[in-house]
């Protein structure tokens, strides 16, 4: 008798784990493909719509800025035009002599100031550069400008507008000078204008929290004060722009933020108007649209993900159920073919043994016949011969019981209905297992109810179930223990009950409801197919009975087979 491997070493529900793994992978693959097929189009549509809107809005904002810059340029040009015209008119309607008289100049200055407070002072300079007449708050009369750059420029061009300078007053201003030729002599009318007075015209273009508007000259020096980029005469952080026609709109990084910058050169003075806008403010509607789009996208994604998870779970569930059904069917089929093969083998062996047994039986019978003769009976060993032959007969009988049982076991046909005495069936089944139990020092005890009614069922199939369950019980006990088998009759349900209890470790409660699943095994991986109990379950169901498992009050597992006296469904 070979030593059996230790079989209940680990409680590993290996089928469950392997299958969970398989379904997990499938679930991931399905989810990934469903999500990618639904999310990619969603993102493409969302992004392209947003991009389109963004571009349209950017164009609109730029156009607005361009219009604003050109409008302001127009106003400023008009302003300078008016100032130059005013001086030009004064210079050409008064003679040098008339203006040199302080009262006339004061009068003219007063007239000019009456309508607009742009002018700081006004003065007349003769052709030698001497400041011959002056009206204004400062004592500038008598100053000579012959060497000043602007003096030469006026002589050359007739009209001159200076850049902004701080001058002696440390206050930003600029001058406008007009040349008057009177016969063979010429003189210059010069006026000073404070920048702050027209700065408001520039500032009218600035908008928002970070908006800015200012003028720069050809040397890229600020001509008016700006909100953020510096004071007059400072260099603003924008690249110098050589004079160009029309207006420009560009994006520039100023400090920490990207600003939208519109620039245009004035016509009458060499200054450039710069208007800066904060795109953050201008694009607020776009940003709001983006947040809304993001929220909608997130909601869409959530719906898609939830839907995908729901659908995949549904599919996996159905697949699992189908697999379970298939496994049961497969297990049934496998068991059937296994039993058929086993049956053929058993039948072949039994047949081959029966023939020599028949010969032995006949030979022993012959010897017995001969022993009846008179002279043999006188032999002193007659009694020994007779005893030996009787023993041979007895053991042939014993061997015959075994081979006939083998053949009975092999005879597995379609479910048949014969009267089966369960007590007899139990006894017969146990003879198969008694040796095994004895080797492992396991005691098999029986408690068989007298007068047990016969059941009309398939004895061979019930025997198979019984064999399986008792074999499991012996495996569970391993060594030195007891397997107890009890038969009884349930009068109410008309069931014959067979209860098999063991002194093994019992069934862990978390797997108790799984033990009849196909491929569930508590035996070490590779040593059990896990088919036994599921087959038992399907056989018992087919026969109209049931099989149940629980743990006994003193530990150990208890299996109960219930066989109906008569199975209605299988009749006919």
């Amino acid at each position, binding site marked *: 008798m070979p030593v059996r491997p230790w079989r209940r070493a680990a409680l590993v529900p290996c089928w469950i784990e392997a299958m969970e793994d398989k379904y997990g992978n499938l679930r991931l693959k399905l989810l990934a493909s469903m999500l990618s097929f639904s999310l990619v189009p969603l993102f493409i549509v969302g992004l392209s719509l947003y991009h389109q809107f963004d571009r349209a809005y950017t164009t609109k904002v730029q156009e607005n800025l361009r219009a604003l810059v050109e409008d302001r340029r127009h106003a400023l040009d008009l302003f300078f035009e008016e100032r130059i015209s005013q001086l030009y008119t004064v210079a050409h309607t008064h003679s040098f002599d008339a203006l040199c008289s302080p009262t006339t100049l004061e009068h003219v200055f007063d007239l000019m100031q009456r309508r607009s407070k742009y002018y700081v002072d006004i003065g007349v300079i003769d052709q030698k550069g001497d400041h011959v007449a002056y009206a204004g708050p400062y004592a500038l009369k008598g100053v000579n400008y012959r060497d000043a750059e602007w003096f030469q420029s006026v002589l050359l061009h007739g009209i001159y507008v200076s850049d902004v300078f701080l001058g002696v007053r440390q206050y930003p201003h600029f001058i406008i000078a007009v040349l008057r030729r009177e016969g063979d002599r010429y003189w210059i009318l010069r006026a000073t204008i404070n920048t702050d007075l027209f700065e408001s015209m520039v500032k009218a273009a600035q908008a928002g929290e970070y908006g800015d508007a200012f003028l720069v000259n050809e040397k890229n020096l600020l001509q008016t004060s700006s909100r953020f980029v510096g004071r007059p005469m400072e260099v603003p952080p924008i690249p110098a722009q050589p004079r160009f026609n029309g207006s420009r709109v560009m994006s520039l990084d100023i400090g920490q933020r990207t600003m939208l910058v519109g620039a245009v050169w004035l016509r009458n003075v060499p200054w450039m108007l710069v208007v800066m806008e904060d795109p953050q403010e201008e694009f607020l509607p776009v940003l709001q649209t983006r947040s809304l789009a993001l929220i909608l996208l997130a909601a869409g994604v959530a719906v898609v993900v939830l839907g995908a998870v729901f659908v995949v779970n549904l599919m996996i569930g159905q697949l699992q159920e189908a697999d379970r059904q298939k496994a049961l069917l497969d297990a049934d089929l496998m068991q059937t073919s296994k039993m058929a093969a086993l049956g053929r083998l058993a039948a072949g062996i039994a047949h081959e043994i029966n023939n020599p047994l028949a010969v032995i039986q006949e*030979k022993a019978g012959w010897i017995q016949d001969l022993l009846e003769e008179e002279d043999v009976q006188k032999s002193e060993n007659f009694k020994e011969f007779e005893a030996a032959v009787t023993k041979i007969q007895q053991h042939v009988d014993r061997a015959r019981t075994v081979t*006939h049982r083998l053949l*009975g076991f092999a005879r597995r046909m379609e479910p048949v209905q014969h009267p089966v005495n369960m007590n007899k069936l139990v006894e017969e089944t146990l003879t198969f297992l008694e040796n095994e139990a004895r080797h492992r020092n396991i005691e098999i005890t029986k408690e068989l109810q007298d007068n047990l009614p016969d059941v009309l069922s398939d004895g061979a199939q019930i025997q198979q179930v019984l064999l399986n369950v008792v074999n499991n019980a012996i495996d569970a006990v391993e060594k030195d223990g007891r397997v107890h088998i009890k038969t009884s009759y349930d009068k109410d349900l008309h069931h014959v009950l067979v209860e098999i209890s063991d002194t093994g470790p019992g069934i862990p409660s978390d797997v108790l409801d799984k033990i009849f699943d196909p491929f569930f095994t508590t035996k070490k991986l590779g040593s059990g197919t896990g088919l036994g109990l599921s087959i038992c379950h399907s056989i018992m169901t087919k026969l109209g009975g049931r099989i149940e498992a629980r743990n006994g009050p003193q530990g150990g597992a208890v299996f109960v087979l219930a066989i109906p006296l008569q199975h209605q469904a299988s009749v006919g």
Partner: protein
Amino acid sequence: MDGPPYRVLVVDDEADFLETLVRRLERRQVEAVGVPGGREALAALAERPFDVVVLDVRMPGMDGLDVLKAIKTRWPLVEVILLTGHASVESGLQGMQLGAFDYVMKPCKLTDLLPKIELAYERKCLREKASR
């Protein structure tokens, strides 16, 4: 059972079994002849009449059931008892349908077989009377 000795033909391919069974039957005042196969059995029957045939089902050459068919066609009054190493109900039932008197599973005790042979002989006598 007293009366005129009846004749039994035993057909089995196992020579040891055949020889011993024949000898034991003879010892019990049964006129028995043993042959090792189906063809020999048919030849023996053609040569002289037998009352009962004890026929092994599984034999090399001619199968027991075929021999049974041949006997029942040519000598319908001869009774046949099948010997089988199989406990297969099918071959037993099949044999009964083909007209065998009974079937016995190997290994069998002579004390079980002999009463069946006697019963078969009785039936043969009854049928002979009826057919007369």
